[in-house]
């Protein structure tokens, strides 16, 4: 079924049109009343409430900026009460490479000696940190004890625990015009190494699994995380039974891990 889409001006960008054009059987812009509303940017919490009240089949949140976890909890409860699924277009957690391997990674994560996630990107470090927390929640599960040692306009650095495993989160705002995120799980005998590029383009993430038999590059998928998020939106809109990889409740839980004031820095 082809769903009609309304793009909020804050997310109405050529690359979004390009993505929708690659899913012509699922979405169409301006096709009658909106089945799906896409919104995001700095003002997304204020815009989400009326969007939910319009009772679309689904909402896609993109370019999610940090805000108060209480606000997000309230919005999540409202979305639940109205039965409107909200899909969050977060750059690494919804990447097809992540969703394909998340269960296997999660199964081995707690045997790791350390878990590291690093990002070099042109976006604000607070947004990078939030996206990293989403990636960790999707692949590792709950992390605790987040300690922020740096978060400013240039970089961020934090540590946490996944059970007893140390987790390092770091990133820099890079002026090189490229985006890169790495997730590394170093185990005693096995390792996972995931490497992501720009979520707006279809350059595939690479997933290396290493054990005593060698190193295996898992099949690459030339689909951007952004396109995957739209696919998840269609699934959510057509069947409320399948939760998206990363939900508003997840976002609220991640925001609660870090002081809101720090994320606004």
């Amino acid at each position, binding site marked *: 079924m082809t769903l009609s889409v309304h793009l909020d001006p804050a997310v109405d960008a050529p690359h979004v049109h390009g993505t929708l054009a690659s899913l012509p059987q699922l979405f169409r812009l301006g096709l009658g009343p909106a089945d799906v509303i896409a919104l995001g940017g700095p003002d997304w919490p204020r815009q989400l409430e009326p969007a939910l009240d319009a009772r679309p089949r689904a909402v896609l949140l993109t370019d999610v900026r940090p805000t108060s976890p209480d606000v997000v909890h309230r919005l999540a409860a409202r979305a639940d009460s109205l039965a409107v699924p909200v899909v969050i277009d977060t750059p690494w957690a919804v990447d097809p490479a992540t969703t394909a391997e998340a269960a296997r990674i999660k199964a081995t994560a707690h045997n790791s000696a350390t878990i590291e996630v690093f990002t070099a990107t042109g976006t604000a470090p607070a947004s990078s940190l939030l996206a990293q927390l989403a990636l960790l929640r999707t692949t590792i599960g709950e992390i605790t004890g987040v300690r922020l*040692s740096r978060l*400013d306009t240039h970089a961020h650095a934090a540590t946490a625990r996944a059970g007893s495993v140390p987790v390092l989160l770091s990133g820099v705002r*890079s002026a*090189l015009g490229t985006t890169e995120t790495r997730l590394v799980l170093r185990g*005693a005998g096995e390792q996972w190494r995931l490497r992501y590029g720009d979520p707006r383009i279809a350059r595939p993430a690479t997933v290396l699994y*290493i054990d*005593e038999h060698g190193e295996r590059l898992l099949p690459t998928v030339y689909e951007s995380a952004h396109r995957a998020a739209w696919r998840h939106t269609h699934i959510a809109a057509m069947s409320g039974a399948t939760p998206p990889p990363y939900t508003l409740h997840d976002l609220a839980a991640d925001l609660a891990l870090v002081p809101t004031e720090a994320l606004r820095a």
Partner: protein
Amino acid sequence: MNTTLGVGFIGAGPVTQAIHLPHLAGLSDRLHIAHVMDVDPDTAAAVAARAGARHSTSADELLADENVDVVAVCSPHAFHADQAEAAARAGKKAVLVEKPFATTVPEAERIAKVSRETGVPVLVGAMHTYDPAYLAAAAHWGDLPETARHIRSAIQLPPNSRYVTLATQLHSLPAGPPRRDLSDPAARAAAISGSVLGLAIHNLPLVRRFLPYIEAVDTAALLTPFGYAVTLHGPDGRTAELIGHMGTAWRPEWTFEVWGETAQLHLDFTPSYVRAGSARATLRTAHEERGFGPFPHNGYEAEWLHLADLATGAATPRYGLDDLVADLSFATDLAARAGTALQQEGASA
């Protein structure tokens, strides 16, 4: 008559046997092994025999050997300072001290003072600081040391035996240190300090180049079965992550990366022991990417060639004595702070 420079080794343990002997043999047009000293007479004799060299159990005897032109101090850390000083005072042409330079900053300052007094050049075996790809990148990285924002050093290694057996056939392997009870906070602090001075130290002179002053160690964690994860920052907020892990996984990683305002440096080093050539270095800006290496010589070979040039007066030291002391000061300061941070984290957990 052998016209190459004669090298005398004080200490003939695994590093001498597996790293220095094969590397020196590959530089036989410049250097040869003249004398091997070890407190264990069997080890001294067996290792010396491999190179057709004299052997002894006394550093004094080695220093009195006129065929020894340059001295390599490869003994346990506690002996480095006295033996380096004695080698310089013996009038040798150059001295290589394996890392760490000494165990304390006053000891390192004493070696530097003697080197100045005697005019005998001293070099620390921090092999990555001599890696040809690192040096090639350094010649082009511009203001990256001033504009660095984040530094990341990651060392992931299998057990040493995986490489040692490919580099040599060891005559003997000293017994490892006794297992410590890591439930004791003091033992944990000592363990992380030891891992910083034992493994992280390979890259610490590089870290100091981009983060010269430590304001604080923010976090420190011991990794199992061996390793560390340490984060620190400098007075201007620049941060560094140091990760070192030795497990059973075969895949090595020895990377050093720096992100600055307009450039990024990536170094991918080869493992120690095996003669696998230099690192590959990449310098990236928004407009270009430049690669350096791999070159045939790794940092060990490059440091020996530099030592030969110093001994013959063909070069001046690449790193001044003040730099060598500052490198040690940085390493011991970091090790102590990491130990303290780990204890504090344990107390607050």
